[in-house]
């Protein structure tokens, strides 16, 4: 920038430097400091107070983070207030938000070194967090009885085990549920679908519905990993086997072909409406927006669906042999490994799952209560007809459930979005089922590598 200044200029500058400051300048400088200082310190003062105490009765502030709507927030806050009532030294810093963006926020909090002590997570991300050692292994607490899973179905708590460690405890149980519009079917004198119908029978039924009601009979679930998963299990395959995929491109081609056939027979909506269903949250699923007679959801989402439609809804298992379905942890509670209040956090999980008052408060919002004794209490208690329905279908299916699959592996969320992309490629007619399948399997391999 500037050429080196010759040394001769040194003297005058030095003198200028030593001349006394005129008073006005000094005052101006002082003013600057007084104005700027608070700004600086305001920006710099990022308070972090930590009270890590060993005393069991010392005050503990536990941060807890979940996703969900207003209803869930209300129920959860009530249940946590009950805990504080029983343990006055424990208070909660509660944060919740909608599902969209939840995992971005959780990842950012973790990266920022400020993760919540206790957080809600699902099988989409459990392995991601467990594999990176972000979740506390709950096995020792389970063994010492501080975390009581004795009343849980074994397959349910096992669905929280990643690499031999209990990474999360099921906050509730759900399973795949096919929800259909009863009112529409009754109006046109059409039969209701039943559990155990084959896929072919389901599509034939949907075709008939479309023909008579002008409402497409069934949402095309080819982009839906949970439908694909059930179908795979009925073919003796699985989504994952160990650290690998449990299926081949041929399986995917068969799956896409099945639904291409259904689309050709007009059993499903058009591609853009299918896409709308794929990319909307539960409140805008096609069965409630009236754009199809059937939607593919989780059974415990019945109350949410019912809130958005005046029509009567029914729920059954997905087509094919229902033993391909399993007692799935709808979501988990996990404890951050670096939490200063691990023991309290575990105790809160235990409370939310095994305390009769708390479980009654929470109802079936996160799925059927994991504790089977309390599940009976809640189902006897509930008055919400939609909730009753979802409890009834799950109770019926519980008799038929098969073994739980392993928890989806690291990269699963990418696999899910790749399935949507590939299936939609086939739906819009931009690729043949075989091309879309090959592309999907290729993408999966790099996603889980």
């Amino acid at each position, binding site marked *: 920038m*500037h050429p080196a*200044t010759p040394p001769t*200029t*040194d003297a*005058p*500058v*030095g003198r*200028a*430097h030593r001349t006394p*400051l005129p008073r006005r*300048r*000094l005052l*101006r*400088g002082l003013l*600057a*400091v007084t*104005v*700027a*200082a608070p*700004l*600086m310190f305001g*920006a*710099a003062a990022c308070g972090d107070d930590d009270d890590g105490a060993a005393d069991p009765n010392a005050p503990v502030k536990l941060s807890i983070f979940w996703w969900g709507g207003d209803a869930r927030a209300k129920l959860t806050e009530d249940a946590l207030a009950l805990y504080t009532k029983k343990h006055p030294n424990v208070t909660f810093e509660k944060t919740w938000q909608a599902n*969209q*963006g939840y*995992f*971005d926020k959780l*990842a*950012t909090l*973790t*990266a920022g*070194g400020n993760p919540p002590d206790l957080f809600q997570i699902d099988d989409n991300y459990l392995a*991601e*967090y467990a594999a*990176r050692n*972000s979740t506390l292994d709950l096995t020792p607490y389970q063994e010492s009885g501080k975390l009581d899973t004795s009343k849980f179905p074994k397959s349910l708590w096992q669905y929280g085990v990643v690499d031999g460690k209990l990474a999360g405890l099921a906050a509730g149980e759900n399973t795949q549920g096919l929800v259909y519009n009863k009112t529409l079917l009754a109006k046109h004198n059409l039969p209701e679908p039943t559990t155990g119908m084959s896929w072919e029978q389901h599509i034939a039924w949907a075709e008939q519905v479309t023909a008579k009601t002008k409402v497409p009979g069934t949402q095309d679930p080819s982009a839906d990993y949970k439908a694909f998963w059930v179908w795979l299990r009925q073919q003796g395959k699985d989504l994952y086997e160990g650290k690998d995929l449990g299926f081949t491109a041929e399986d995917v081609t068969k799956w896409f072909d099945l639904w291409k056939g259904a689309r050709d027979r007009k059993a499903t909506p*058009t591609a*853009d*409406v299918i*896409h*709308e269903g*794929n*990319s*909307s949250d539960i409140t805008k699923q096609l069965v409630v927006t009236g754009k199809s007679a059937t939607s593919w959801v989780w059974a415990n989402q019945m109350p949410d669906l019912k809130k958005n439609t005046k029509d009567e809804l029914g729920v059954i298992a997905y087509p094919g042999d229902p033993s391909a379905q399993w007692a799935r942890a709808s979501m988990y509670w996990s404890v951050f490994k670096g939490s200063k209040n691990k023991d309290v956090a575990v105790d809160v999980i235990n409370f939310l799952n095994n305390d009769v008052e708390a479980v009654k408060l929470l109802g079936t919002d996160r799925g059927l209560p994991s504790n089977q004794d309390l599940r009976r209490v809640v189902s006897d208690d509930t008055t919400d007809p939609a909730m009753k329905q979802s409890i009834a279908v799950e109770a019926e299916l519980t008799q038929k459930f098969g073994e739980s699959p392993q928890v989806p592996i690291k*990269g699963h*969320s*990418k696999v899910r*979005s790749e399935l*949507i*992309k590939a299936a*939609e*490629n086939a739906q*819009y007619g*931009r690729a043949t089922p075989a091309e879309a399948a090959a592309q999907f399997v290729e993408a999966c391999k*790099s*996603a889980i590598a």
Partner: protein
Amino acid sequence: MALTTAPDPTRRGPGSDRAHAERRGPGRFRHSEGLAGYVFLSPWLIGLMGVTAIPMLLSLYLSFTNYDILTPFSEVEWVGLANYERMFTADPSYWHAVRVTLTFALVAVPLKLAAALGVALLLNRAWRGVGLFRGLFYLPSLLGGSVALAIVWVNMFNRDGAFNSLLSLFGITGKPWVNDPDWALETLMVLAIWQFGAPMVIFLAGLKQVPTELYEAASVDGANRFRQFRNVTLPMLSPVIFFNLVLETINGFQGFTAAFVLSNGTGGPVDSTLMYTLNLYITGFTDLNMGYASAMAWVFLLAIAVITAVFFSTGRFWVHYSDGEDR
């Protein structure tokens, strides 16, 4: 970026004083004034360092690692150029995103500038109520990257949205624009073009600067309207066009909000709206490949820098600054 080369306020060696003294003339410089300046500057400077410069440099480092957000910094592994290698050789969706972004920018930016210039020409007259129109045309760009606007857009261009209702009045059956992979990106382009208010206002200001003598001289010479536009308006406006072109191109490349909202954060349907920044976001926050996402960000920065440099180097052939003065 040039700001990072600003003198360090904590360093008070004679050398730096000398440099200042030389710049301001001997004896005039007062140390306290410089200090006061830096103290006033400090909130901004701390903000720049803390919020922009340091994180940016950190991301440069992260782009050579396998950082996945969840793993603590201390356990991050250095992977050399692997992320860059993957981007250029093994990631088809990366190149797909590049294509989508280029298509978007190549169509939306020129059309937006044309719309801005056209409307600015119309509004550069002394009509009654012209101020109201200026305000109305400027309004959409105030809503800028707003999420609400994108949501409205999605609902307008649905299969049963307002736009198709309008078309049906003329007996045309519309398409499910936002849910059709062949049209979703075009819908986003229309949204971007519609927000031409900001460049329009700048064009208007530029048009006001063109001396009326030039038009008078031109009409005396018998130039018609079109000739006047081509030979007077465009050259006189070229610095403003250049400014808007650079700014809007950078904006166009960085489009994120509308694509994110329209596709629910997925870039769908079938990746048709997978803009570069959206792909970067998904890679970093959904797929937890933050190291790789950082590499993408740096390549993006370089690409934009190169494009801007190209603009600047071609500028000398078509940008005219009147009578040698700088604007």
